[in-house]
């Protein structure tokens, strides 16, 4: 069966005054119907740019999708006209953004902003749109939705705003939902509620989801498969369990070690941060981008950037020394 979404060799760069930023360097992955995929990486790893690229949301200038194919329902999204792509955005692929504080337009009512997504995509009358807006708001758990429809974003708490974002993204019943760190800006207590909400609703509506996060812990219970990104490359890709158990990339290892876990009993002093600064994206990647921070780095890592290679069934890693890494975790 064809994949719902297939990304092949996607390259996105930003041309800035300081030089060319190599944000995404040839990533490929797939997403099946109803599947949920996690993309994990630290700031600047290209995880967000990667999904924005396929949505056609990279601001040009300075950004440009240089290369690659993104098949969705048989079409290459990158080859569609602006109008065709617009028709897919919001209707087929919807997105929830990181910061609900800044992602809602402060001068428009939330009702308008939810209704807005339905107008071009659904053939509904004004009344029906208004009705559905209220339904959606109720669905995501906004009390007094009918009256609060006319309120502005600043009249809602952060969590509520994210719920509104979710309501918005669900409005057209998309087949793919991309959630870009939807909880990082929220209080810890709210985080769980929101994650739960998205999870519940995506299952209810049968949507495939892509979770973008820098927090491996978050995706653990959420997704089937995880992609780890570093410096615009996919460095490891595996099922969640496999990734935890058979970690095959030193960066993933670092992420796991810096993670306080509720399930394990690692003491705080045993959390190990990843040393060194994040990579300089302005440099043309010639060697392994993680090499400067890598405790496993050897001469080869400085000579050649390791390709993503299959290390086990459904498990890929881009490390010359993946076996050593895997051995080290055991």
């Amino acid at each position: 069966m064809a994949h719902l979404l297939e990304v092949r060799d996607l390259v996105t760069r930003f041309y800035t005054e300081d030089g060319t930023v190599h944000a995404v360097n040839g990533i490929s992955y797939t997403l099946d119907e109803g599947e949920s995929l996690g993309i994990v990486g630290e700031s600047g790893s290209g995880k967000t740019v990667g999904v924005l690229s396929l949505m056609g949301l990279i601001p040009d200038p300075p950004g440009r999708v240089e290369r690659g194919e993104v098949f969705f329902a048989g079409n290459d999204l990158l080859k569609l006209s602006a109008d065709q792509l617009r028709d897919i955005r919001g209707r087929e692929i919807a997105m929830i953004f990181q910061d609900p504080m800044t992602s809602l337009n402060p001068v428009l009512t939330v009702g308008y902003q939810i209704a807005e997504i339905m107008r071009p995509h659904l053939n509904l009358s004004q009344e029906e749109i208004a009705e559905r807006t209220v339904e959606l708001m109720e669905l995501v758990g906004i009390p007094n939705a009918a009256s609060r429809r006319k309120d502005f974003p600043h009249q809602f708490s952060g969590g509520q705003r994210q719920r509104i974002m979710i309501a918005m993204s669900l409005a057209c019943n998309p087949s793919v939902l991309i959630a870009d760190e939807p909880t990082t800006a929220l209080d810890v207590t709210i985080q769980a509620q929101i994650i739960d909400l998205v999870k519940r609703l995506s299952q209810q509506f049968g949507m495939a989801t892509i979770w973008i996060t820098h927090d491996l812990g978050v995706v653990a219970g959420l997704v089937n498969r995880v992609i780890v990104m570093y410096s615009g490359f996919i460095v490891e890709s595996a099922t969640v369990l496999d990734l935890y158990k058979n970690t095959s990339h030193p960066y993933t290892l670092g992420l796991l070690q810096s993670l306080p876990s509720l399930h394990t009993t690692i003491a705080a002093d045993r959390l190990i941060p990843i040393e060194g600064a994040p990579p300089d994206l302005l440099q043309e990647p010639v060697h392994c981008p993680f090499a400067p921070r890598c405790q496993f780095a050897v001469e080869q890592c400085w000579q050649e950037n390791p390709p993503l290679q299959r290390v086990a069934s459904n498990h890929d890693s881009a490390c010359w020394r993946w076996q050593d890494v895997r051995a080290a975790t055991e």
Partner: protein
Amino acid sequence: MSRTRPQAAKGGSAASVGAEVAGPADDWLVVSRSPVRRAAARFFRDPLAVTGLAIMALIILITLIAPQLYSWDEIINVSNATKLLPPSAAHPFGTDNLGRDQLGRVLWGGRESLRAGYLVVLIGLGGGTILGLISGFAGGWVDNLIQRFVDVLLAIPGILLALSVVGALGPGLVQVMLAVGLANIPDYTRLIRGSVLEAKENEYVRAARVLGASNGRIMFRHILPNVIGPILVYATLGLGIAIMITAGLSYLGLGAQPPSPEWGAMLNLGREFMRHAWWMPVFPGLAIVIAVLSINLVGDGLQDAINPKLRK
């Protein structure tokens, strides 16, 4: 082993992609120096801004050497024989209605126009900065009082201020510019107050306060360096506007006194002859356009350098 290890990423230069800018450190020197240096680097990489700066420097240089090229007698001596001559090799900018060489006058005029422009900006900037800082920082009744004062100043037409200053001090460009500078204070006050209110909420100001820094120290060491950027930009624009104002005031007989070849006065004189001798208004007008343009280019360059978000 000679490998090129990547340097630590240059500050927040990749900020536009989403990397977070490092929070400012506590010592303002550290805070300000590096952004200033980076802004300067950005400024000098902008060809338009550098061109503007070069033209400005050239204008200043030319006006400085003008007295070597033309004597004051040549500037003021009238002659019927050379009246209203179109541009020629002898008089590249033509001659005016009293037979004076316009090139010489334009060169000399730059001295007065630029000096007047700087004076206006200095007064407006100085007064406005102090009032704005106090107003924004102190808040409460002090703020209220200053804001009402600014309202009053804004509500009184600048021309009345200009007339009263000239009435008291006698006519002359400097006197009028003093008044125009005064009239500019409200603009700067408002601008600076707004920035101060914003800056006051910043973490590092709170931090400084927690650490027990005095008000004066916070105001001048922590807030001022952070609000000065937009003000400098506004000031460069104000310089251009000030030169334009001299033309308007000459229309009313205020400002530079004859036979001073101040650009605004020349432009105003040219108005009477615009249908008979195009070169009379056009050359001083061009001088103003070029000066204003260069100042604006510098201003834009500064704006872009300080706030790279708006870059082209």
